[in-house]
């Protein structure tokens, strides 16, 4: 699974992109985020407030209940501030 982080999340986690193999029990966005938080204090800090974490799976916005699969591109980022 390809993980992408943007803006504050990228800075807090310390990388823009990584390839990870979450355990088979990770089937939804919510489970993925919970699993990521166990990977270190940087992840835990970046992902602590779900209000400040938006998720896109394969470049489409999704909610926390959305499924994730090994081949997916999953992006985590704060609320957007363009325009």
């Amino acid at each position, binding site marked *: 699974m390809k993980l992408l982080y943007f803006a504050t999340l990228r800075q807090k986690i310390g990388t823009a992109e990584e390839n990870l193999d979450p355990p088979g029990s990770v089937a939804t966005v919510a489970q993925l985020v919970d699993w990521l938080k166990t990977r270190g204090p940087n992840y835990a800090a970046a992902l602590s407030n779900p209000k400040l974490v938006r998720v896109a799976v394969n*470049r489409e916005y999704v909610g926390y209940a959305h499924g994730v699969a090994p081949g997916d591109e999953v992006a985590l980022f704060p609320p957007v501030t363009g325009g």
Partner: protein
Amino acid sequence: MIRVQREDFDPGHEIAALTRGRSDIGGVVSFIGLVREMAGAEKIKAMTLEHYPGMTERALEAIEAEAKQRWPLDAVLIVHRYGELKPGDRIVLVITASAHRDAAFDACRFLIDWLKTQAPFWKLEDTESGPRWVEAKDSDDQAAARWKAD
């Protein structure tokens, strides 16, 4: 039509290109967003716009399609820049053209409201007291929400 680019754009050129040779367009509305020097009480020296290449284009295309479905538009253009910008620089251009001015106004405003809350861009301001990520504004969420009640 949508474009995501590092380079500046020329609003007059874009408006002319969109309306050239057309005699069915009654009104053209455009919005240009610029970098303001003051961010609250702090002066900014520069701003860096980060985005999510690939998803940004998709999100803008989806927003454009939504506007075209809601209003009778003859032409739409969205241009959004990324990278480093200075105060006074252009950030975003939205142009809508329609036989009727109300449609052009509503669609232009809808596009910029949605773009502010949906397009994956993030602003990092380089202020006098250091770099700072811009936080999403409730007022932008409210502006976008008004289009949902329709």
